[in-house]
């Protein structure tokens, strides 16, 4: 029994989304299907961050690291002749274990929220340098040559056909959002929300806040790892760029712009910002970075709650005025 009941409209929304995801490939060109697939992968990544940041208040600046590790794990296992399914599982485990280790140090060491952010960012930057330094062919794991800044290429796909792959990714995103929403309404999710609001109060009721935070942080990392494995499978390549500062910032920007705490906002933010980045990318990467930086500064200053919550609050305040 859940302490919070979801709105009756919400399952209707889910149904509509499922229908759209199912029929969308028929309305689009193959190129567009491939394009939107990667957007959906980024939505997965954004939702993973929202689960830790929006729900439990744990802001990781290293979500891109869990994503990248998932991608590398997938690529390495595939290169060693494991099945793509097993490689996908390895991606999930890699992201989850990395997040679990960092989370253990941060939460059981009682690091402040700010130090959690700094530590995860530093780990990401160091991963960038470590994997960048593996250009020499002597750096290999089994048959997988890491390839330095050039990264790994010719990674086999989970599903070679674009449309089934689209459905798989879309289905996973759908599942994640639905189960994430149910988790948020369940007792475990409410305890996490309470930890976000006032951790000490939760502990004074006998809950072990450290364990709860570790659990959601590792889960969030595992989902980021899944997204990373799907990304490596989608493009057939992975390189240390996934650990770059811009990439790490991008995940945070998606969730910040869309609005945290609802999972929907994160997905919307990822989709919108990514579409914009795609467009700007045709002009030049420096412009993209400039705009992303400006977005980050201006949203923190002007609209710290993000688009979706601000929009919904606007709607309800109009409703109150009409009454």
């Amino acid at each position, binding site marked *: *029994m*859940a*302490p*919070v009941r979801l709105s009756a409209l919400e399952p209707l929304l889910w149904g509509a989304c499922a229908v759209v995801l199912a029929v969308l490939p028929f309305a689009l060109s193959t190129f567009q299907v491939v394009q939107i697939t990667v957007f959906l992968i980024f939505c997965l990544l954004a939702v993973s961050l929202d689960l830790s940041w929006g729900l439990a208040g744990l802001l990781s600046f290293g979500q891109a690291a869990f994503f990248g590790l998932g991608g590398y794990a997938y690529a390495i296992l595939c290169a060693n002749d494991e099945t793509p399914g097993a490689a996908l599982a390895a991606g999930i485990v890699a992201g989850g274990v990395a997040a679990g280790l960092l989370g253990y140090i941060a939460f059981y060491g009682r690091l402040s929220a700010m130090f959690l952010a700094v530590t995860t960012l530093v780990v990401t930057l160091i991963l960038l340098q470590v994997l960048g330094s593996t250009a020499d062919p002597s750096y290999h794991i089994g048959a997988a040559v890491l390839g330095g800044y050039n990264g790994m290429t010719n990674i086999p796909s989970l599903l070679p056909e674009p449309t089934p792959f689209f459905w798989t990714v879309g289905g996973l995103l759908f599942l994640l959002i639905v189960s994430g929403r149910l988790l948020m309404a369940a*007792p475990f999710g*409410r*305890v996490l*929300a*309470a930890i*976000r*609001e*006032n951790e*000490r*109060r*939760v*502990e*004074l*009721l*006998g*809950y*072990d*806040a450290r364990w709860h935070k570790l659990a959601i942080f590792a889960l969030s990392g595992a989902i980021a790892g899944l997204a990373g494995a799907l990304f490596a499978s989608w493009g057939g390549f992975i390189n240390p760029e996934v650990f770059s500062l811009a990439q790490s910032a991008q995940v945070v920007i998606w969730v910040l712009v869309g609005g945290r705490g609802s999972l929907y906002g994160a997905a919307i933010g990822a989709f919108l910002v990514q579409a914009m980045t795609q467009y700007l990318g045709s002009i030049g990467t420096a412009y993209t970075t400039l705009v992303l930086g400006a977005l980050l500064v201006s949203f923190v200053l002007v609209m710290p709650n993000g688009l979706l919550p601000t929009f919904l609050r606007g709607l309800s305040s109009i409703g109150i005025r009409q009454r």
Partner: protein
Amino acid sequence: MSDASAPSSAFQNCTASAGPAGKTLLETRGLSKNFGGVKAVTDVDFRLGRGELRCLIGPNGAGKSTFFKMLSGQLPPTAGTILFDGSDITGEPPHRIARLGIGIKNQVPSVWDGLSVYEHFFIAAHRRLGARRAAAVADELLMKLGLATLARRDVGALAHGERQWVEIGMTMAQDAKLILLDEPTAGMATDEVERTVALLRDVNVSTSLIIVEHDMQFISMIAGIVTVFHQGRILIEATMENVLANPVVREVYLGAGRPGR
């Protein structure tokens, strides 16, 4: 058990059936806390019987809140031991102490502003009872505290007195053996204080209570034995009547310009 007769008289109901005669629930030995060079609590030997309701009074800075924070695991003691219900809980983390059966309401209201009243009670009860029974406990508390109409409201939007009740309600939902209340009636109107007294008498039927208060009216209405803290030490432990008659208490506490409120 606290005596529930005639709340109007401050001096008659202090004959205190709640003496230390009952079996000991909580005991501290030589409990001390230093902050740097400042001694907040010094060498406190304290004993509370099962089923007792005890009030702690003393001027600001006497060490009452620090004492509470050590009992609930929010501050590790510098020296001394805390025994609760037969086990040594000195230096245990807050969640372990809570699991053994100590609930606390801190002086500064500590609630979850973004969560509803219902959720507060549900979460407080859920750890021990599971979802189904926690929901029942939450509904019951909403009725008992008169908060039913506010059940779905965010606690951040409530008035100060209501927030206090939410936090008291959480300690009740927790089903603790001992509840520590740090200034439960601060910021409440007179009628609210009276309701709180009635509520706490009810709670005291099954639970031991230690209450820090400044409000003499409140203490007169509810207390059996009163423990007076002064400069980190226990000054005197007696009935309210004797405490009020004590010249030293009058000097350090009442003479300090805070005769009630």
